[in-house]
């Protein structure tokens, strides 16, 4: 037993070293393992008891969309420390871009894979156009601007019905062309979508990790920690933040293209604020700044949302508890639709995580070490003592010997 544990520890440390030095290879290997698991798990108990293999693949492919969204938002919120509340808007822009390029509505039928990049690029254009004027201001303004943008984009799609078919949305979007080896994208199975999604997530993760480990990633983290100090160390904060924001928008647009092709319909109600909020909650739950954690968090949260809550409904119906009747309060477990509560649960989860476990459910090793070391030091934590103070005059002057007089 002891020997086994020692071996396990050795294996762990060796694999960590490997992962440090061969990030991309590690990601590819891990995603391959994940892909194999995703393909075979739905066929074995207990998962096959819940639903058939194809609904599982469908759920996995949809979860992949949210994994992609969460990884993109993680760059903005987790790495660069900017709050983007209109993330669904870029998702919508990507989706509508694809809808225009591949539907009877426009009469175009452009290839899917290049369109992934085009949709991402269009979203990036909007991201830059929105971010450039806002990011030179303090961070709060970005939150409110993006919140407004996220609200406006669906409204514009609803209101300009000659071009977007208003609330009905654009339907009948063509599916992607057949893949080599995997064949057609049939409406009956989502297997191909899942495969494509795994591929996209793998590539995205590889690229994001490369940025994370580079000069740019360090600059993002520096801005998140202390924007003024980052500027005083030669980082062009506006440009660096803009890059993070645009990258987030790009990822969101890419996810939008994929989602449009999978649903074969886009309509404004798919892109409400609750989508942005869900993705934000996924990032927080997974652990801001931790790419793996966020991806895993998004995957799990999505499965809870679409599989577990539905299961709870059927369980609640089958156990048949007597209804609780206390005058005005009527509580009947069998009648409760748990999916109605999902956003409330997300809200509570997000707030609880922020208050009690800001490092997320899956903190990276380094981050956990930091937080534990911080506990020993207690009040000496300069992150808590020194306020961020982005505005000149708020901190620099009041900070020390020059204060007040």
């Amino acid at each position: 037993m002891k020997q086994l544990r020692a071996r396990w520890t050795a294996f762990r440390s060796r694999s960590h070293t490997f992962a440090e030095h061969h990030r991309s290879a590690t990601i590819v290997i891990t995603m391959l393992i994940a892909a194999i698991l995703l393909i075979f798990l739905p066929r074995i108990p207990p998962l096959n008891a819940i639903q058939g293999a194809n609904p599982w693949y469908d759920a996995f492919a949809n979860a992949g969309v949210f994994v992609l969204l969460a990884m993109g938002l993680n760059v903005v919120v987790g790495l660069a420390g900017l709050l983007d509340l209109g993330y669904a808007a870029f998702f919508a822009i990507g989706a509508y871009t694809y809808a225009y390029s591949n539907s009877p509505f426009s009469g175009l039928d452009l290839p899917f894979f290049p369109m992934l990049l085009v949709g991402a690029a269009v979203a990036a254009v909007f991201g830059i156009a929105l971010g450039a004027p806002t990011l030179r201001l303090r961070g709060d303004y970005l939150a409110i601007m993006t919140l407004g943008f996220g609200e406006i984009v669906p409204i514009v799609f609803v209101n300009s019905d000659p071009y977007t078919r208003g609330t009905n949305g654009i339907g009948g979007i063509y599916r992607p062309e057949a893949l080599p080896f995997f064949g057609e994208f049939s409406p009956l199975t989502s297997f191909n979508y899942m495969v494509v999604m795994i591929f996209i997530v793998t590539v995205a993760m590889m690229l994001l990790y490369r940025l994370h480990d580079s000069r740019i990633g360090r600059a993002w983290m520096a801005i998140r920690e202390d924007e003024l100090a980052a500027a005083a160390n030669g980082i062009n904060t506006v440009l660096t933040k803009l890059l993070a924001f645009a990258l987030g928008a790009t990822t969101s647009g890419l996810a939008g293209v994929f989602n449009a092709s999978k649903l074969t319909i886009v309509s404004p109600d798919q892109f409400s604020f609750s989508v942005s909020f869900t993705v934000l909650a996924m990032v927080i739950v997974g652990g801001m700044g931790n790419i793996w954690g966020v991806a895993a968090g998004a995957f799990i949260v999505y499965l809870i949302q679409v599989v577990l809550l539905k299961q709870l409904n059927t369980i609640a119906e089958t156990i048949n508890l007597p209804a609780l009747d206390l005058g005005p309060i009527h509580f009947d477990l069998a009648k409760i639709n748990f999916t109605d509560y999902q956003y409330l649960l997300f809200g509570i989860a997000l707030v609880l995580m922020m208050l009690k476990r800001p490092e997320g459910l899956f903190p990276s090793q380094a981050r956990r070490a930091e937080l534990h070391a911080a506990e020993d030091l207690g009040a000496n934590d300069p992150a808590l003592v020194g306020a961020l103070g982005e505005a000149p005059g708020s901190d620099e002057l009041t900070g020390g010997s020059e204060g007040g007089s």
Partner: protein
Amino acid sequence: MTDVLNATKITKRFGGLVAVHDVDFTIPEGSIVSLIGPNGAGKTTFFNIIAGIYDPTAGSIDFHGENMIARARRAWLEPFLWLTPPAILLLITLAISTSGNQVLTGLGIVFTILTLLGSMVTGVSRPLAYQRAIRRFGIFRSARPNDMVVAGLGRTFQNIRLFANMTAMDNVLVGMHSRLKTTWIDALLSTPRDRREEKTSRVRANELLTLVGLKGRGDVVAKNLPYGDQRRLEIARALASDPKLLLLDEPTAGMNPNETANLTRLIGRLRSELGLTVLLIEHDMRVVMGISDRVTVLDHGERIAEGTPDEVRRDPKVIEAYLGTPPA
């Protein structure tokens, strides 16, 4: 000896408060210059003006002979300047569209949008080259902190501002940011240039950590370092940008005499070994008098004395500012 920095008639007001008033200041190359004065004298404000954090209300600062910081002039003209290229393209596109060639019109629209985005990004991120270019049109806007770093200025903060949750190594690597050439595209593709630069920059960062006495502590998260080490790490981070002029804001504050002595030696070595020019704000007179070539004294935002340490020490105005009455 040429001057690294030349400040003329710098004034800074915050609302009704005059923090710095009409200060002239020069830093000759290769010297160690100290800025002293009682609490609230405006030292840190002056520092922040040099570092590009505040715009001065009046006056200007030349850095290596180039005017970098002054009150903004004709800033309202700037948006028109960067809106010009997309506007021209828009007109061309409109002209094309009358011909009815849809492909060309589409291309025109795409190029107009891309140019507009490019203009916007340049306009808000204001790289140094852009700032120099707009000066030809009589538009002047002060360099920002990051531009000053690119121009060759490094600084530390009075109340330490490390990136608390990053390792010491990463802190120094961030300091190196402006000297690294790899772009985000290099990083995405993991080009050989990117990998090479990452390797050499880590070697250099280790050298810097060794120089300030933090050898082997690179993996420690900054906030877990002891106080004195945090001060030293901040100096290493400032040095990482290969500055010509190093601004140190009370580097020995809160240190014990032993640490202070070590740090004083380090500052001396920075000049002798790296050829740096140093501007120092300091309260510890032993440090100031020991290593400074020139000392400038500020009181209530005004320069009341300037000279060698000995001259300043004997200046009655300085003694009055510090003690209120002449010494017994």
